[in-house]
């Protein structure tokens, strides 16, 4: 009897994991506010990036303020392949990263191990 209960619990757990990780979930998106001709977005790094998608205006100088709260060494760097940026994020410190917004498009950023991803949309 107990084995059947364990089996049901286990299968439910599998179902939950599939739904939680593979199901469609809303992604936090933020559009930058332009102030004094500079657009700034704060990105918190904790188990991933929030917001995960950042929308920037083309042609306006932009700064992304990364702050790492997460203790994992997985997230100790942030890499923007298209911009040649590979920056260390010391834990708990605000790290401003300048983004060249002259070309419109969609760009990816990732952690140093390429496990966590964020998206940058310039339009």
């Amino acid at each position, binding site marked *: 009897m107990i*084995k*059947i209960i*364990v*089996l049901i619990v*286990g*299968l439910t*757990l*599998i179902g939950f*994991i*599939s739904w*939680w*990780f*593979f*199901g469609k*979930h809303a992604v936090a998106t933020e559009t930058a506010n332009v102030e004094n001709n500079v657009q700034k977005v704060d990105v918190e790094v*904790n*188990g*991933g990036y*929030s917001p*995960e998608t950042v929308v920037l205006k083309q042609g306006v100088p932009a700064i992304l303020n990364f702050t790492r*709260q*997460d*203790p*994992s*060494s*997985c*997230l100790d760097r942030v*890499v*923007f*392949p298209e911009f*040649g*940026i*590979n920056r260390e994020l010391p834990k708990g410190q605000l790290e401003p990263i300048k983004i060249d917004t002259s070309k419109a498009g969609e760009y990816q950023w*990732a952690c*140093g*191990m*390429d*496990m*966590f*991803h964020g998206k940058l949309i310039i339009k």
Partner: protein
Amino acid sequence: MSITSRFWISLVLSLPMLAEMILKPFGWMLPGGEWTMLVLTTIIMAVSAGPFLQSAWASFKKHHSNMDTLVAIGTATAYFYSIYAMITGQAVFFESAAFVTTFVLLGQVFEERMRHNASSAVEKLVNLQAKEAEVLRDGKFIKIPLDQVVVGDEIRVKPGEKIAVDGLITSGSSSIDESMVTGESMPVEKKRGDHVIGSTINSNGSFTFKAEKVGNDTMLSQIVELVKRAQTSHAPIQKLTDKVSDIFVPIVLIIAILTFLVWYVFIGASVANSLIFAVSVVVIACPCALGLATPTALMVGTGRSAKMGILIKNGEVLEEVNDINTVVFDKTGTITVGKPEVTDVTGDEKRVLSIAASLEGASEHPLAAAILAKAKADKLDVPSSFDFKAIEGKGVRATVDGQTAFVGNGKLLADFDISADMKQQMARLQDEAKTVVFVGLGDRVIGLIAIQDAPKSTSKEAIAALKARGLKTIMLTGDNERVARAIANDVGIDQVIADVLPGDKADRVKELQANGKVAFVGDGINDAPALTVADVGIAMGSGTDIAIESGGIVLVKNDLRDVDRALALSRKTFNRIKLNLFWAFVYNVLGIPIAAGVFFAIGLTLSPELAGLAMAFSSLSVVTSSVLLNKAKISTNVAMA
């Protein structure tokens, strides 16, 4: 708290449990038994493994998972089950949680150090920069910090000093060690009018130069920028792992639950044993090695090549190089020196040359430059000439020393006399791929000047090395077939495509691409379209903006042998990436079934501790393999610089 201190805490607290594990058969028991274990492990879980749990929870809330998720679930399961087992009086396995934490942290400590090593190439380049410069301000030379130097500043460089920025020598001369930027080991002689590169080292002389490029415009800054981009770029092969990491962890969790269910429900093992199998699966499956495989190799490979003066732009180029079967070369400036030189003079050498120099003095034709250079080198007195007249499409005529003199090409022969002997010499010179210029006085040809753009001394060796690699070599040139053919034979090129207009080069490369992937080697200015069209564009020398923009690989030195070195390095790096990925995959693919107890029947199992150790080793081995790329022997047929 740093990873290192977390590691030491967990190691020290794990040792008593390790001692018990080893000494148990000899009758030694840990004082306090399970209670001591509980206390030790609780501290480890809170201090050393705590950050794993924290990070796992943070990403779980965002529907993400990472390696910390696996470590956290693995250790937490072992820990909490052991507490339950203690209460109900069953066997505990606290030590599993403790050992796994220790091993995972051990792996991370090493990995952090290795990753730092791998990324140090750029820092080393930046550190090459001079810190200050002696600049002329208000009539006096004063030392100022580098960032205050502006374009147009007059800068004095003493023996042994570093040259601050890029510029042009205005007075003095010296030999300069440019190895840090170009990879060229021999010092280069520089005098007034020559360009100097910032961050190179002046050896014996002193000179002043005018700053032309400062800050981010200097050659070194551009190289640094390029290397940075290459190191952060993604190789297409990596796209696989991009996707894998996101779905991998949840799948592993599912496999772990299935493992438990199969062992407990269907086979009928005890809860403890079933859990051990499940925990092993979770621990061994960490995908770190997979994620590290490409970026670390890319970083080390591009860093090493940059030190040799070979700049590889991105990971995509590395992959393309592997499939190249044809290398196309531009002729002038790539295979040849790019400066036509006088090779032979027939007749009365001095007189022929001085008359030719006199008539060509005002011309801007490249052949004229060669004649003037020769006259200057021979320190000839060049007589003055007047009454210039162009002979349409044939040459020029003027009056020198009261006589009519002329210089021009073969079409002049219709108007003037030439001896049979000279005619023979003309044919011989033309067959040697030399352009022949006729010099005459009155109505008679008095001498011939042969001019040739000679191949670089290293071209032959470079081509031979590429052919030894099984590559087809083709020369593309605007020159006529005869001259091109002679040069090609000289350096050993397989095929010649001559009489190509500069604008058609790209189209010719496209045609060749029908037969396979093509690399194009050019000097970057008029070759820019062809460099872009080719699968791999290799820009030679100069390091100008255009070259850097259009080439996938930039050779800082003007040495054709670097083409072979670049190909060798790219292949090596790409093969290392493949090797890394292979081992990372194999490790996970083989490790999971073993950990799940599939091979239990033949006695092959993995305890959670061993799984943790194996995991630590896998990421460590991948990073080590990448760092070793720095030392790896590069198989090339040319001498390494």
